[in-house]
């Protein structure tokens, strides 16, 4: 058990009893050697590698016509070419350069915004809590995609506005999680004794509350990365994401949907989304199994 993600190390450090910790580790270890987990980490690794090296490894320029249009997959163009004669394989690879970083940005900003709101709501309680949570309820009363659609349309379709819209619809999720963990941490003895030792609110938040309540929200963020990719693709499918000719997976699928006979234009970007999102979901599953001891027992014996 050497290679655990930092998030989990942090969670584990909390366990003060060394003996229990060792015992638990030997059990938890199995989660990280399960084939699903290994495959999902590998898939995420491959996509990250492709996203980083895309400019050097794409066989053709993803934004320019490089051959006859609407060619079926062949040995030159593995995934075929689209209406404008652009190479679909190159576009799928460069698509990762948009989707992956944007998903990280969406999740990071949602976590930041939701984190601040949840932290203040949980720590200050009373009126602040009431207002913050009603606000969260309000956002959650809209179906995500409809609200995101309205926001993007209102601000004008562009990459930045799509990201903004997705942050607006997803922060309440993080706010709720952070709030509930802050509520329990707030009453802990070390926080109270921090106050007695003279910590002000800021010091108490930074030194005691945040480090001890961030865990669940960080786990949640891993899982939400996949969701962010899906939502972003949906917005660009509807024509509300990155503007053409950008190689965005959702927009590529929309382009291919105009004529079903050119199946390859839509099929491959869709598979790209499917694989990366599925990898994030599987990884999230493993992390949850790892953190929830109940999920290992509980068989009807």
């Amino acid at each position, binding site marked *: 058990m050497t290679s655990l993600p930092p998030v989990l190390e942090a969670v584990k450090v909390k366990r003060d009893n060394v003996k229990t910790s060792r015992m638990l580790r030997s059990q938890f270890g199995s989660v990280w050697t399960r084939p699903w987990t290994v495959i999902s980490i590998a898939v995420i690794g491959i996509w990250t590698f492709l996203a980083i090296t895309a400019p050097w490894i794409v066989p053709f320029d993803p934004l320019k016509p490089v051959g006859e249009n609407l060619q079926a997959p062949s040995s030159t163009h593995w995934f075929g070419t689209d209406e404008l004669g652009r190479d679909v394989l190159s576009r799928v690879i460069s698509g990762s350069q948009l989707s992956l970083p944007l998903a990280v940005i969406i999740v990071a900003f949602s976590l930041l915004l939701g984190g601040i709101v949840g932290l203040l709501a949980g720590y200050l309680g009373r009126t602040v809590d009431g207002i913050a949570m*009603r606000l969260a*309820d*309000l*956002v959650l*009363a*809209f*179906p*995500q*995609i*409809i*609200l995101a*659609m*309205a*926001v*993007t*349309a*209102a*601000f*004008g379709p562009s990459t930045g506005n799509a990201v903004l819209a997705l942050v607006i619809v997803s922060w309440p999720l993080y706010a709720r999680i952070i709030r509930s963990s802050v509520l329990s941490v707030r009453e802990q003895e070390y926080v109270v004794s921090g106050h007695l030792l003279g910590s002000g609110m800021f010091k108490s938040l930074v030194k005691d509350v945040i480090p001890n309540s961030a865990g669940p929200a960080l786990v949640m963020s891993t899982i939400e990365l*996949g969701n962010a990719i*899906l939502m972003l*693709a*949906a917005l660009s*499918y*509807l*024509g509300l994401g990155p503007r053409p000719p950008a190689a965005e997976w*959702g927009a590529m*699928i*929309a382009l*291919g*949907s105009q004529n*079903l*006979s050119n*199946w390859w234009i*839509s*099929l491959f970007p*869709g598979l790209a*989304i*499917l694989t990366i*999102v*599925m990898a*994030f*979901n*599987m990884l999230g*599953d493993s992390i949850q199994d790892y953190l929830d001891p*109940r*999920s290992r*027992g*509980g*068989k*009807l*014996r």
Partner: protein
Amino acid sequence: MPLLLKTIVKRLLTTVALLWGVTVVTFLLVSVVPGDPAAANLSQQAYDDPEIREAFRQKWGLDQPLIVQYGQYLWNILHGDLGVSQQTNRPVLEDLARYIPATIEIAIPAMAIAIVVAVALGILSAMRKGSALDNGIRVLSLTGLSTPPFWLALVALYVFFYIFGWVPNGGRLSNIYDPPPTITGMYTIDALAAGQVAVFWDAVWHLALPVGILAVLTISGLLRFVRSSMLEVLDSDYIRAAVAKGLPRRIITWRHVFKAGLLPVLTVSALTMASLMGGAVLVEQVLSWPGLGQYAYKSALGLDLQAILGVTLFVAIVYTGINLIVDVLYTVIDPRIGAK
């Protein structure tokens, strides 16, 4: 039951407050942001003419101060008037009455299929935890959760329409048929009511693909929840006690696990209706299904304030209404919750 009544009244009040909030948010969103409804609805030539632009603004009250616009809007809603859509030039209420039944017609069957299948597979998966069957079911549900809805719809359309020709290309009815006389707005029911059997079957044929796709999308999310909720019950002390007592497995499964595990499923099914609406936006778009989702999309693109407000208000009412019913049911089924 005064406690139950209190719960209902309290929830009704919060629901009203929430709906008011929805109108404020949507109103601000569409009014304050940089997008200009005049630009979205008028042609470039018309927009460049200041007179036409002003006339458009005046017609829709866009020249009034915001607070007046909002006050007017709220006043109208309270009198059952949702305004006129800038896109269709029809009253929004009329538009909703036209599009909502089309969405209900695919959403309700999809939901019903999804609940039955998800509960069955979820129980099976939980009972055989760790088996090949369990793993297979989990992978399938993960795949469903990770598939972009619009892409799934496209792939289904390609396979079942383009290759096999089993289903139509989209839409609600074949061109050769006229829509049946409107009673509910749902073609299947209206056709039966009018005794038009051929139209009924044609409508069912058109329903197959959208319902199937929405059901698949819904099953994936629901299934995970059923499984974990069943697992939680299986791990509880009273089940262990039942096993220790030597009760037959069949009785434990159906009398204890099934009942207890179904409670949380009730909640999540309600929440699923909302995600179903989201899925409907994309699926309706691919299959050219003239439902609420498509209407929402078109009005969002056109910055059609009245229409967007109408849709969000309707969805919020449905959503909070379902939640209210579930909460009440919950209190009835599990008295411990009301007592808290």
